């Protein structure tokens, strides 16, 4: 079963606003990855943050990782309608290589 929980489950914002999604996990990890999934499509890798990193940026994306709280957040700045999708965090469980997903956050960006 999945070990991650994401919050909120659904988020609706206006274009130009920022969107923040949170993810919590249970076991120790090697790294945490965020993925986007458009409706009916496969998963697209967004960003990977290693367990010894605290923050990472990629374009309009900012990811933080707090291993003491077993949590991560994904911030999308200046959102666009094209950002509408489901976003999943996934952790690589130490010593297994297994990628465990959360339930996802469904983001709707209104034009």
């Amino acid at each position, binding site marked *: 079963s*999945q070990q991650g929980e994401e919050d909120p489950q659904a988020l609706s914002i206006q274009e130009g606003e920022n969107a923040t999604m949170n993810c919590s996990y249970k076991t120790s990890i090697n790294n945490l*990855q965020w*993925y986007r999934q458009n409706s009916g*499509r496969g*998963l*697209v890798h967004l960003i990977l943050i290693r367990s010894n990193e605290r923050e990472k940026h990629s374009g309009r994306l900012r990811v933080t990782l707090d291993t003491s709280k077993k949590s991560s957040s994904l911030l999308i700045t200046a959102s666009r309608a094209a950002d509408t999708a489901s976003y*999943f965090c*996934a952790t690589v469980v130490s010593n297994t290589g297994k990628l465990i997903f959360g339930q996802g956050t469904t983001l709707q960006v209104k034009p």
Partner: protein
Amino acid sequence: GAGVSQSPRYKVAKRGQDVALRCDPISGHVSLFWYQQALGQGPEFLTYFQNEAQLDKSGLPSDRFFAERPEGSVSTLKIQRTQQEDSAVYLCASSLGDRGRGNTIYFGEGSWLTVV
């Protein structure tokens, strides 16, 4: 190819029928994963290969599910005697290194299975 390729993209199977889903990982990728994603849920791990060795099959839901990767590249997920609860998207993923540790894991578009 440039990405992970899966076929067929869509499959409708009658209950009781056997199905085979194919995955072509990114060339040279050592690790290969299969995931099952039900509608509205996150992907659930099924099985993991390192080259041709199936090192983890703990997520396979029953003995009707079987996966192989005989030459360490292409993989096939076979579902025997399909049931309605098998209806889901089956996602294949690959990564360059051993067990995906520290490596980006790339996903295919998925095979959408509907059992009627």
